[in-house]
Structures are given as C-alpha cells and as structure tokens.
C-alpha cells in the first residue's frame, strides 16, 4: 500500500476509529515511514491546538436559564395555532370544498400527523404518508399553513413532504406551486421552499416535482422546486436523483419524454454535454442548438464532434 492510502486513514487512526487489523497496518507503516509519521504529528498538533481553545465567552445567566425556557414552553403551542388560523382559512378558501371526499376511515388530525412525521423514522413516515392520503381539504390547508408559518423548521419540512406525497393531485400541486410562487416573492431563505433540498431524504420530492414538469403550464414552477432540490455537492442524493431521472427522460423511446429531458437540461443545467446527442434529431435539434449557443456562447452548428471537443477542452481547463 502506498503512503497516500495510509494518509487517508491517519485521521481515523488518530481518532481511534480503525478496526484492530487496520490499526496494526497503519501502526506498522508509521514505524517505517518518517514522512507519514510527520504527517500524523502535524495532525496531532492541530488537534491539540483546537482542543486547547476555550469557547468564546461563557457569561450565561444560568440561574435564569430554566425560567426562560419554562416561560417559552408554557405558551408555545397556543401561539402557533393562533398564528395559523387566518392563513389556514385563506388557503381553505383558495382550495374550496370541491374535493371533499367520502372516506370509510376516520380522518387523521393533521397537526398530530405533522408532529409525528417530523420525528418518525423511514418506516414510520411511510405509514404516516398513507394516513396523509386520507386528509381532506381542511387538513391539507392546515399542512399548507404549517409549511409556511410554523416556527419549527422540522414541522415546516414535514408539512412540505406530506404535501409532496400527494403531489400527483392537482389541488395539492396548485397549493405547492402557490407556495413556491410566494417564496420567490418573499425572502426565499425564510420560507419552506428555501428549506428543502438540504436533507438526503428530500430526494423523495424529485419524482413529484418532475411529474409536475410534464404539464407545460406547471413547468416553470416545477423547475423552481427542482432547482431548490438540486444543491449539487451539498446534497448528492437529491442531485443524483435528478440527474438519473433526467437521463432516463433523455434516453426514453418517447419523443415527448426526450423533449422534456432537453427542456430540463436547459433549465437545470445538468447533463449539458448529453444533449449534444440530440443535435441532429429533427424535432429536438433546433431547441438543443439554441440552448447550447446560449449556454456556452459558442456555435459549432450541428457538428456534434466539435461540441464534444469543446466541452472536453473546457473540462480540462477547470
């Protein structure tokens, strides 16, 4: 094994994270390699310096700390509900009562659903999403209100994801999109649409968002949601899911899927090189060429080889 490979394990070695056999291998290597031993020493020096730094200031009034927590916990729930009522009512008006459903099961309490969903594990969430499928418009309106107004981001996210689990329904789509529209007007970092995309599990929202993209009327809003979900290296799960699904669309046998794929590539700026392949496809070529020109400020016409060579050169430079 080379020094480089050992060096990758030095942090784990110093942190006592290695299994005994791996620990022995690194220890053995260190005994005979001055350069790696020096690297370990530097790491340990840094660790020592970090640990020696006290936190900045410690002037908390501990005597009043619990009182302050108590004062805040005694009123927190009542305040949340009061704040939500007007908005929930407004959303309900928008929604109308048209989708009143006749169900055989009792309708779940949306607030309890949210509380449970926010801290449930994956299996628990799946069960709760099934419960959410029985929510009536009033319940959905409570979710929408919580998504925007709740002071707790975990609840906001739970509301967003529960709504996303029903994103294939037109009224829910409208609700989601109304919220994404508000987000673009308000401070986008303070509302839900700014929150999503940071957790690996947010990748679950990619599929409903892509479903929305299939409607040309909803395309722009869908792209806004997908852009929030696509945080590149910050959330490789969601980014990977978007790339995978767009690639599926590009390689589909259905012309409308390929066209949607190309539009998404243009809007999301993923898989840019992949669309070169479609330059000579009659129904897609002009659209692809237009996108490539705008994206790169280059123009190689329909010469696929020239485009690929340009992208390769560019990749080599960065």
């Amino acid at each position: 094994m080379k020094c480089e490979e050992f060096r990758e394990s030095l942090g784990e070695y110093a942190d006592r994270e290695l299994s005994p056999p791996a620990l022995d291998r690194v220890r053995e290597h260190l005994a005979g390699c001055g350069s790696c031993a020096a690297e370990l020493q530097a790491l340990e020096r840094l660790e020592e310096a970090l640990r020696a730094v006290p936190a900045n200031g410690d002037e908390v009034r501990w005597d009043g700390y619990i009182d302050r927590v108590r004062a805040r916990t005694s009123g927190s729930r009542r305040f949340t509900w009061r704040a939500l009522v007007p908005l929930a009512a407004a959303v309900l008006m928008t929604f109308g009562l048209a989708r009143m459903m006749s169900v055989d099961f009792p309708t779940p309490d949306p607030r309890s659903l949210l509380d449970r969903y926010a801290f449930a594990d994956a299996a628990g969430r799946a069960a709760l999403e099934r419960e959410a499928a029985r929510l009536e418009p009033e319940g959905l309106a409570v979710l929408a209100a919580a998504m925007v107004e709740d002071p707790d981001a975990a609840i906001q996210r739970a509301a967003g994801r529960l709504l996303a689990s029903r994103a294939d329904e037109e009224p829910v789509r409208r609700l989601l999109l109304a919220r994404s529209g508000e987000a673009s007007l308000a401070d986008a970092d303070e509302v839900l649409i700014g929150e999503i995309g940071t957790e690996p599990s947010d990748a679950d929202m990619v599929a409903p968002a892509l479903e929305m993209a299939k409607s040309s009327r909803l395309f722009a809003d869908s792209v806004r949601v997908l852009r929030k979900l696509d945080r590149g290296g910050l959330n490789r799960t969601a980014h990977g899911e978007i790339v995978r699904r767009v690639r599926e669309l590009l390689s589909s046998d259905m012309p409308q899927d390929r066209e949607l794929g190309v539009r998404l590539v243009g809007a999301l700026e993923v898989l840019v090189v992949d669309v070169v392949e479609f330059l000579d496809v009659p129904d897609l070529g002009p659209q692809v060429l237009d996108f490539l020109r705008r994206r790169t400020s280059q123009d190689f016409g329909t010469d696929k080889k020239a485009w690929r060579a340009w992208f390769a050169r560019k990749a080599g430079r960065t």
Partner: protein
Amino acid sequence: MDREASPDMDADLVLKFRNGEESAFEDLVRRHMRDAYGFCLRLTGDPAEADELSQDGFVLAYRHLKDFRGESTFRSWLFRILLNRHRDRIRGRRREEGRRAGLRREEEGRAAAGDETGAELRAEELAEVIRDRVQGLPDRQREVLVLHVYQGLAYREIAALLGCTYDDVKMNLSLARRRLRDELREHLS
C-alpha cells in the same frame, strides 16, 4: 456531566415527562444546558446567539419529546434539534456572513504578510485566530469538527446524528483539518 451514567437517567426523565411529570423536563434542561450551550457556542461563535439557539432547542425538544422514540440518546437527539435549528437560523445570513468572513480573512492575510509575518501570537490571540478559522469552515465541515473535537462524538454517532454516512463524516473531518492546517500553518509550527 457524567456521560457514562446519563443516558439511563435521561431515559428515565423522558419517561416521567411523558407520563405527565412536567418537572422532569426541567431536570433534563438542567442536565444538558451547559453541554447544549457549549455546543451552540462552538457552532455560532457568539454567546448571545448560543444562548438563544440553545433555548430554542429546548423549546423544540419540549414540544416533540412525546415523539422521541429513544432510538438514540436524548443528548444526540437534542444535538440534532440544535443543529437543524442552527441551520435554519444561518440560512439567509449565510452568504452575507461568508462574504464578510472572506473579506476579513483577506484583510488579515494582508496585514499578517505586511507587518507581523512569523510573529508569535499570544495564547489568547492564537485562540481567537483558531476560533475564527473554525467559524470560517463550510457548515458541514464545522458541524462534524465541533461534534467530534468538542463534543467527543465518534464518527458513527455523528453520521447518525447528521443523517449521513460514516465516509461523509470521515471526508468532512479530513477536509476541515486539511483546511485548518493550511490556514494555521504559521501559527502551529
């Protein structure tokens, strides 16, 4: 805090609280407030913010304690709440802060190169520089570093808490250390 003995006592207090004993939550706050505050202080670098953030965390814990399943320790669960809350708070301020920190580092870099190159810093000044560099780390790297170095969590515990893999923790810790070593090179030699 006696961490060895605490998880059982915490579980006991959680159970009491869920059975209606409000004072059990205050005992939980009392047991964890210094730890939580210290963690928040390392994350934010600001005592007032740390105070507010740690209290936010307890308020949220209070609201959701009935849903806590005990699959992790109360401490890990609380840290997770604190981290999420911290992320919420910094989002929106992130770009501006990053820009300012970048400018500050550039200015400091120029000042150091100009007149004090190689000069030994006093311990307090060095501590300030290190705190500043830790604050300047990308969010995920700072979170992993603080959880490991200052809160003493193992890689797997951090992975569970952050909802990422062991390798993500290892990578982020390694990147944080590499960056800090580069930035603190002249002070640590």
